[in-house]
């Protein structure tokens, strides 16, 4: 990477540092959750590891004060960038009452937070694509200069809702950006058994823009999402982005990936870990040195520790509170 690439695409030094910090925070929260899970303290983890660069690159290209996002379960990086705090995420991991996503009702990584325009998500994959399209439709009806951004896995791009949502958006030229985080597996099923084409090739069938981008390169992702957003706001319609990534962890804490993929493949992928390569970029650009790195790690570790402690000690929702909010009260 050239050491002033970020400037050439309009990002300040502070912004790239903030991107790195957000990526690293996501990674650290994720890692902590695995530890907590293995220690028997939280029942479930599903990871962002390996996909942070794509997530942060994309999120920083959006208007984080006004755009709406409909993230999928791996988008820890996206939701942090949109304002969800480590504490809030830990409250969710521990399923505590204060969890802003669901009050402990949903599994962790089922994001949702209205004040940050993070649309509530479910477990069935791909349902969020039509939702994002609906938000984009509403925004257009109300003449708002905003975009709706949604993500999903490449396996999930085979659901009918992907097709129906993108087609609707294409016909109505709606300001929606759909980013598929292609990490090459849908649980154990490798991409060759999921698709016989590139995800981005599907754009053509909806008359929309399709782009493939290196999901390990946050600046590259930033660029394509930035452009997609400009097109969206400009009335030129949706963009389908395929970010090529890799899933470093097992599918979730319930999965053992050794049954279906070689360790060597994972090791190879980890060499391209954006946490490492983007750090190297920042060093080359003169924005990071050992001291700054240590400070940053210390700062983030403190945040994660504090969040963990708080969440661990927080209260569960009362049993009967399960009865609340079925309908408007």
């Amino acid at each position, binding site marked *: 990477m050239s050491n002033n690439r970020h400037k050439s695409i309009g990002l300040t030094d502070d912004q790239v540092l903030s991107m790195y910090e957000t990526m690293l925070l996501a990674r650290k929260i994720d890692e902590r959750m695995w530890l907590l899970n293995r220690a028997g303290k939280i029942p479930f983890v599903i990871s962002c590891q390996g996909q942070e660069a794509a997530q942060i690159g994309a999120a920083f290209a959006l208007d984080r004060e006004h755009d*709406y996002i*409909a993230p999928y379960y791996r988008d820890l990086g996206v939701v942090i960038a949109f304002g969800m705090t480590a504490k809030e995420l830990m409250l969710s991991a521990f399923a505590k009452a204060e*969890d*802003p*996503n*669901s*009050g402990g*009702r*949903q599994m962790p990584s*089922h994001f*949702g*937070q*209205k004040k940050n325009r993070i*649309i*509530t998500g*479910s477990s*069935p994959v791909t*349902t969020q*694509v*039509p*939702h*994002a*399209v*609906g*938000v*984009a*439709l*509403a*925004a257009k*009806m109300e003449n708002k200069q905003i975009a*709706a951004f949604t993500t999903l896995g490449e396996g999930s791009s085979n659901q*009918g*809702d992907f*097709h*129906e*949502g993108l*087609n*609707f958006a294409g*016909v109505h030229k709606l300001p929606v950006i759909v980013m598929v985080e292609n990490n090459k597996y849908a649980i154990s099923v490798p991409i060759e058994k999921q698709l016989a084409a590139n995800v981005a090739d599907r754009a053509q069938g909806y008359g929309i823009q399709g782009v493939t981008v290196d999901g390990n390169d946050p600046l590259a992702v930033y660029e394509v999402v930035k452009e997609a957003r400009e097109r969206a706001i400009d009335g030129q319609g949706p963009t389908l982005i395929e970010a090529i990534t890799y899933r470093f962890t097992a599918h979730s804490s319930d999965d053992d990936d050794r049954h279906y993929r070689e360790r060597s493949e994972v090791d190879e992928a980890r060499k391209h870990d954006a946490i490492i390569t983007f750090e190297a970029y920042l060093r080359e650009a003169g924005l990071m040195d050992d001291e700054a790195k240590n400070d940053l790690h210390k700062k983030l570790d403190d945040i994660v520790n504090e969040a963990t402690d708080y969440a661990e000690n927080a209260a569960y929702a009362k049993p009967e509170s399960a009865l*609340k*909010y*079925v*309908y*408007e*009260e």
Partner: protein
Amino acid sequence: MPVMSYIQAVNTALKEEMQRDEKVFILGEDVGRKGGVFKATEGLFEEFGDQRVMDTPLAESAIAGVGIGAAMYGMRPVAEMQFADFIMPAVNQIISEAAKIRYRSNNDWDCPITIRAPYGGGVHGALYHSQSVEAIFANQPGLKIVMPSTPYDVKGLLKAAIRDNDPVLFFEHKRAYRLLKGEVPDEDYVLPIGKADVKREGTDITVITYGLCVHFALQAAEKLAEEGIDVHILDLRTVYPLDKEAIIEAAKKTGKVLLVTEDTKEGSVLSEVAAIISEHCLFDLDAPIQRLAGPDIPAMPFAPTMEKFFMVNPDKVEKAMRELAEF
């Protein structure tokens, strides 16, 4: 008071709500220039334009899902499923999403969508243009299911559905569209979702039903009245969640209960009505709870012989009423 048909009441309610609140918009197949295959949205495209009366691609999951997204944003979408039978591709969006949005977000988000669909038989619609589909959804907390029986109820309940801050399935009987006429006030009014309505007071037997069957029951009751049998008729109006108090009261009133639906029998929404009664007023009953329903076959056949065999009609209702009265 003006007299209008059931479908005119649908049309009027839609129009008035769109005039009242610019966040209300319609989306569905052929709802625009054509005005809907039954003309429920006639004239609205002309009045409100193609953005607020939007012809969508032929894809029900998107119609529901895009509507849900818009509702979460703050709009009040009214999605049309061209026939209730074609709601099936949208089940995931309705059950996994719309029904659970408020709950799963702990009241942070909500989903004020109305999904309208014409249901019911007796129109030579055959297997896939005649079905009653309410039982599929009438076990999903978070949803409300409204099935009005009169033009008056249609207008008041459709307005209530559109203003409701939760998802409402609004099923309209397609044979009632032009068959039924009734007085409908010009004024703006809403009727309460979740409340059943006594359509006839009586003392001898109780009929609990909804939709077009309410009229079959009313007709049959007139005949039985001549014989001195006095029928009490409760119109459920909302079939999910049910109005328990009204059901219990109606059952207790006469101690003899006939439940009528044009859906197939096993697992219809009437099963729950029977369960409520047998849980709460067993000792008030003077006769077993009777059910009159369609046969347990996949759907209503096309040939007139078999369609007639399937459909509930006033004669069948009358017969069942008389048997119960004589019990």
